C-alpha cells in the first residue's frame, strides 16, 4: 500500500514537473516557429522557387505552435526569473502582451486560411505573420547574451 501511494505521488510529481516548466514549453514553441519560418525564408526572398506544399506546411506548423500560446499557462507569475529572456514588461503589462499574442494568432490563422497559391500572396501573408516577431520582441523580450 505504501509503495502504491509512493508510486502515485511520484507519478503526480513528474506530471506536475512536466506541466510546470513554462519556460521550457514557451521556448520550445519559439524554436519550432523559428524553424518553420526559416524553412520558407528562401522562398520569401525569391532565392528558392515557390512551393505551395512547403509554404502550407510551414504555416501549419507555425499555426499549430502559436495557437498553443496560452498566456496564463505559459507566463505564470514567477516565471519571469530563471533561464529566460522574457522581459519583466510582460508581467507589468499583461493586457498589452495578451493583445500582442492575440494579434499574432489571428494573423497566423489568416495566413493558413489564405492558402497561398502563388508567390505574391505568400509574401504578403508571410510579411504579415513575421511582422509580429519583431513587434513583440521589441517590447517583451530582452537579450541575455
Amino acid at each position, binding site marked *: 500500500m505504501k509503495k502504491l501511494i509512493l508510486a502515485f505521488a511520484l507519478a503526480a510529481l513528474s506530471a506536475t514537473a512536466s506541466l510546470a516548466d513554462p519556460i521550457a514549453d514557451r521556448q520550445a514553441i519559439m524554436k519550432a516557429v*523559428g524553424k518553420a519560418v526559416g524553412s520558407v*525564408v528562401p522562398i520569401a526572398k525569391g532565392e528558392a522557387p515557390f512551393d505551395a506544399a512547403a509554404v502550407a506546411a510551414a504555416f501549419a506548423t507555425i499555426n499549430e505552435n502559436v495557437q498553443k500560446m496560452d498566456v496564463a499557462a505559459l507566463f505564470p507569475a514567477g516565471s519571469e526569473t530563471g533561464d529566460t529572456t522574457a522581459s519583466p514588461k510582460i508581467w507589468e503589462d499583461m493586457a498589452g502582451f495578451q493583445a500582442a499574442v492575440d494579434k499574432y494568432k489571428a494573423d497566423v490563422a489568416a495566413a493558413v486560411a489564405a492558402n497561398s497559391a502563388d508567390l505574391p500572396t505568400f509574401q504578403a501573408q508571410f510579411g504579415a505573420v513575421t511582422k509580429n516577431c519583431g513587434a513583440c520582441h*521589441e*517590447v517583451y523580450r530582452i537579450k541575455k547574451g
Partner: protein
Amino acid sequence: MITKLAKVAVFLAILGGLVFWWITRPQTLDPIELSAVAAGDPVKGEAVFWQAGCAACHAAPGSKDAERLKLVGGLVLKSPFGDFHAPNISMDTKDGIGSWDFPAFANAVLRGVSPKGEHYYPAFPYASYARMKPSDVADLYAFMKTLPAVAGVQPGHELPFPFNIRRSLGGWKFLFFKPNPVIEIANASEQVKRGQYLVEGPGHCGECHTPRNLVGGPKLGQWLAGAQNPEGKGVIPNITGGEGGVGEWQESELASLLKDGFTPDFDSVGGSMTAVIANWSHVSEEDRAAVAAYLKAIPAHPNGYPAQTTTK
C-alpha cells in the same frame, strides 16, 4: 610668507578656473569651411536619414511606416545618468528645428553644440555623427527640410546633479570626443572602408554595442564587443567575431539581418534593434553588405559585458 602662499593659491585657483573654462567651452565648426559645403540633395539625404536612424528616437514612440517621418520626439532614453527625453526635431519653427540654418544644423550634428551655443548630451550620438562627411550632413539637412512640421514640446531631461550642468559636458568631450576613425584596418577594401564609415559614423552602432566606462566614455579597446543594456535589463550583443559574438555568421547573414531582423537561426531581433531594422531596411543593399564586410574585418573581442546569471 603666508600672504605669498595665499597669493599663489589664488593665482592657481584662477588659472584652474580659466583652464576649466577653456577646456569645457563649446567648440563649433569653422564658419568658412561650413560656407564652402555645397547645398544638399534631399534624395541622397533620405538615405543618410535612414543610416543615421534619426526616427528611432525622434519619431513618436510606437510610430509605424510614414508616421516615422514625423519627428515630434518623445522617446525616453534611460541611462545610468538619468532619463533623456528626445526633443522635437520636426520642421515646426517654434517647437522643432524649422528655423535652423545649415550651420546651426551642422554644429548640432557634427559638434554637439546647440544654436544657443550650449553642449548637447551625448545621448544624442554626435560623438559618432562627428565622423560624417559634411556633404552627407548637407544632404540630410536638405531631406529633413522636406519633412512635416509637427507641434509639440517634449519635457526636459531628468538628470541629477552634477549631470544637469551642461558646461561639464565640455569635460566629457575633452576626454571622449574623437572624430577620427575608431580602428585601423590594414589594406581595407573600398567596401570595408564604406562599412567603416557607416558603422562608426552615421550608423552610430558603437553607441550601444561598445561598453562604456563609469563616466559614460566608450571603451574603444572593446569596440563593438557588446555591453550591458544601459536601460537596465539584459545586454546588447557582441557583434565582433570574438567568443559570444558573430564569428560564425556568414557575411550575407549579417547583411540580411539588417534588412529583415532575422538571425541565422531565425530568431528575430528585439529591443531597440527593432527600430534599427526599421531604418536599415530602407538603406541600400550595397551599404548593408558594406556594414557586414566591416564587421567581419574588425578585431575580435570576447563579450564586453559580464557573464549573465541565469537565475536571480
